[in-house]
């Protein structure tokens, strides 16, 4: 199952006083806290881990049709590869581990779970219609007949003439950026 999360780092800097007492302790495990503490840019490291947690939260919520919850420390991140442009890692939730990829930029971070095709775009473009166009093209369906609806848990799904197409995807928006992750390889 798919989850993705985009973070506008300029907006995050304005929105969150991450240095306040308790902020990091409530969101991150001890191992994650020491990773952040030891990194050169603590602020971007914490948002990298946060975007991994958010992406996997969305994936598990969708997979198990869970009600929404807020327990960031239950999503345990480890990084397997980290360069200035890309991070690969694993996020475990309960007994399950999910691989993630993160693309790192000076102004944004985009994380998504394994097996996704993805794009990110600026706010000016409508990410929902780009997603629908992509799906219409891939399945040769008329664009006017496909739509995005939401389940009672608030999880979006794509419909064709009202029927759920069961296409795994995830949308994310923050500040100037919108993103989606999509898998077209599942039938």
């Amino acid at each position, binding site marked *: 199952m798919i989850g993705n999360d985009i973070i506008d780092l300029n907006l995050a800097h304005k929105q969150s006083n991450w240095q*306040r007492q308790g902020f990091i302790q*409530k*969101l991150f495990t001890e191992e994650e806290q020491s990773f952040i503490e030891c990194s050169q840019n603590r602020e971007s490291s914490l948002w990298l881990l946060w975007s991994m947690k958010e992406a996997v939260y969305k994936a598990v919520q969708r997979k198990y049709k869970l009600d929404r919850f*807020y327990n*960031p420390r239950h999503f345990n991140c480890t990084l397997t590869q980290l360069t200035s442009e890309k991070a690969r890692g694993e996020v475990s939730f309960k007994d399950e581990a999910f691989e993630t990829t993160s693309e790192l930029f000076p102004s944004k971070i985009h994380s998504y779970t394994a097996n996704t095709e993805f794009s990110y775009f600026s706010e000016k473009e409508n990410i929902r219609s780009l997603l629908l166009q992509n799906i219409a093209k891939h399945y040769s369906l008329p664009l006017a007949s496909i739509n995005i609806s939401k389940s009672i848990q608030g999880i979006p799904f794509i419909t064709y003439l009202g029927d759920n197409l069961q296409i795994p995807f995830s949308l994310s928006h923050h500040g100037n950026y919108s993103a989606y992750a999509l898998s077209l390889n599942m039938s």
Partner: protein
Amino acid sequence: MKEKEILDSLKKIVSPYVQRKEGLENFNEETDFIKDLEVNSANLVDVILDVEDEFDIEIDNDSMNGMMTVGDAKNIIERKLASA
């Protein structure tokens, strides 16, 4: 502490993080922090930390887990105050 005082105090606490200000007009127990007020998920922890400071309580992870609405927060605060 009366229910109304808790709700008034919660409204004051959450206001700086609210991105959808109309959501505050009809602020009640059903009000959802993320859906109705569009509080950023990373700012939900600020709401929790501010609640801890304001009421001098500690909100553990299990309590935090279900804090989706104003009513959820109110119930947690009442429970913590009662056991303090």
